């Protein structure tokens, strides 16, 4: 469908990731546990944030994202976001990454779902960027990159019509379809029900440009009103409020996309698996196009921040060490190897992926059976990385 989703997906998911990391890193700081797993200083935290933001908003990476392309699978998204997280001095184990990804996606799903008008997707994105700017305000070089990216987004997305934004939103909704992971914060605030679905209210202001429902008007041939009568709309809506700012700075008015997490309640970032099947449980063969995308994006990420294993801090995001290890071992063994090793050998992985993508491009179109076995080989190769 829409070929313009990727930049918004990464900035919003990345933004949610930073909100969560910020909260967890601060929570870590105040924890009683003083083992050598790492006591995070204020500087360490700021360094993690600016490393990740710096990579995310680097010109090469953004240019890659801004090319028109299809939105790909959760698997690809997760791989790139993991690599993004690991451009910092932080190391997340697969269980942490899994939970982090679920939280990010459910938050963004909520924002897209509740988005009053399709164009407000931009306001949600700008809310994330405003917060990101705050995180890196002490690092002017990175803050500049954020501003540059913001200008580029304004340039690219301002001309889009409301209909095109709705197509973008519909594409995102397909991506989020069937995900109902319960998030403690959402359940507590009653924006999510115990079955994992979001609540919709029948009250509040109508979106900008809309009218409060309840009126039927009949007109004559000259367009003059002949009669009007009301009907019961069932909800209690009010007129639209003022429109938020789409500029570099300004009052966005819309609250979707601002940081929902606070330092005081670390359990807000807990999730619990829903009974419904996760759409990503079924391993999907990465199509050639997706592999190309992955190779290009990984290749465009700055590799200056490749840190040695000794110098990096291992971060337990969500639970006690024991729980994390148990979760890690019960999760797919294959995933564990891919993510763990990739983090250590970033450059090698990117080069290998690019090589694989190049190999694939040289081959001619095969029969169905041969193609699928090639896909299997490819997956096996990735596992061995």
């Amino acid at each position, binding site marked *: *469908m*829409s*070929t*313009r989703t990727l930049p918004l997906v990464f900035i919003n998911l990345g933004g949610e990731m930073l909100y969560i990391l910020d909260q967890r890193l601060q929570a870590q700081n105040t924890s009683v546990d003083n083992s050598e797993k790492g006591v995070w200083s204020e500087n360490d935290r700021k360094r993690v944030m600016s490393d990740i933001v710096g990579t995310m908003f680097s010109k090469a990476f953004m240019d890659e994202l801004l*090319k*028109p*392309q*299809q939105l*790909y699978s959760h698997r690809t998204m997760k791989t790139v976001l993991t690599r993004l997280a690991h451009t910092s001095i932080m190391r997340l184990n697969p269980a942490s990454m899994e939970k982090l990804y679920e939280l990010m996606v459910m938050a963004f799903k909520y924002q897209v*779902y509740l988005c*009053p*008008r*399709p164009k407000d997707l931009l306001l949600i994105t700008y809310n994330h960027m405003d917060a990101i700017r705050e995180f890196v305000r002490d690092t002017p070089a990175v803050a500049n990159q954020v501003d540059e990216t913001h200008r580029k987004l304004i340039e690219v997305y301002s001309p889009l*019509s*409301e*209909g*095109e934004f*709705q*197509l973008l*939103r*519909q*594409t995102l*909704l*397909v991506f989020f*379809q*069937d995900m*109902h992971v319960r998030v403690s914060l959402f359940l507590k605030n009653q924006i999510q*029900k115990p079955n994992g679905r*979001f609540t*919709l209210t*029948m009250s509040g202001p*109508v*979106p900008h*440009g*809309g*009218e*409060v*429902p*309840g*009126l*039927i*008007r*009949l*007109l004559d*041939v000259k*367009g003059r009103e002949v009669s009007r009568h009301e*009907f*019961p*709309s*069932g*909800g209690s*809506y009010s007129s639209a409020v003022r429109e938020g700012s789409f500029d570099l700075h300004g009052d966005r008015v819309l609250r979707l996309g601002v940081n929902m997490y606070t330092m005081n309640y670390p359990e807000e970032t807990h999730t619990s698996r829903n009974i419904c099947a996760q759409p990503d449980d079924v391993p999907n063969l990465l*199509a*050639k*196009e*997706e592999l190309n995308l992955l190779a290009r994006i990984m290749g465009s990420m700055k590799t200056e921040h490749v840190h040695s294993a000794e110098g990096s801090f291992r971060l337990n995001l969500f639970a006690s060490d024991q729980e994390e290890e148990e979760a890690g071992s019960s999760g797919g063994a294959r995933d564990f190897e891919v993510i763990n090793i990739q983090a250590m050998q970033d450059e090698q992985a990117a080069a290998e992926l690019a090589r694989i993508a190049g190999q694939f491009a040289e081959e001619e*179109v095969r029969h*169905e059976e041969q*193609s*699928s076995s090639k896909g299997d080989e490819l997956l096996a190769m990735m596992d061995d990385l």
Partner: protein
Amino acid sequence: MFHKEKNIQIKNSASALYNNLSVLRIAPRRLTYFTVVHANVVNMVSASWDGLNYSHRQLQSKEPNVATSTSLIMQAAFCVLPSRELLVVTSQKGIQMYESDGSIMVYWHALDTPETPTAQAVFARGIAAVSENYVCVGVSSGAILVFDVPSKGSNITLSEVLEEHKESITDIASECSGSQECVANLVTVDDGGSLCVWKSGEEFQLLNKIGGFDISCSSVKLWKGTVVAGYGSGQIRIYEAVTGILQSEINAHARWIYSLDIAPFSGLLLSAAEDSYVRVWHLSVTPETNSVEVAHLHNECVTDTQICGAKFCDGDGYAFAVTGYDLSEIIRYTQT
């Protein structure tokens, strides 16, 4: 006025797409077919009228070759012509036409998709049967493809391409298929809210073009020479087709309208939106005086659901069915 019936389970949840429900009533076999789109799959359910038998079928979007990523489906709709009934499925890659039970694909038309993706998305959306033997399908470029359909067999051909719209087609509607003579029997709408009114024939004739207000029109119906259009602003507008005169404006919904339907024998109008509401209205049209009357009859609130499809199950509007994003059920209502 209406009460809820038993839901019908479908194999996957419905995607958030305009007009995401199509219904075909097969009276001789006492069956009704329902189709709901989920990503790259069409879920088809055949429900017996006694409520005892349900059978399911899934149709996939056709991929030109396995190396590309999946093609998402934009819409699936039944097309009823005097001689036959077809199920038409439109996706990012092209248009598939099946026999109405989904058993055999009788035609495939590939869209011109560029090698590398362009900023403007490519897809087909908007489906309607017109007159005796035409099926019209809209394209993201704004073009309308007119297919000539023989009374049986797979010798379907592209007869004409209508290029009038500048923005992506969102919906197409027709009336008077078969014997009736109508001045205007086709209306096409786009993302910018522009409406085009046509008369079908060997060469389709543009009768009128009604400018949009930059508010996307997501769903449209044509009945007794009257165009009923649903917009992203939540409004419904009623126009006289041939003249383009605006006859009524309804502030109907608090969010984007996703589906409209009309029961032709009774004049009942159904509207459904992302605000969780399905509303039933009564429309009466007096062609002699060019006047229209609209009365609101009933509301149904599908809690916590953004509705994406709503259709009457019969020509009188005795029953209707609803689908919602992320819901794996078809919700049904019948008149009390």
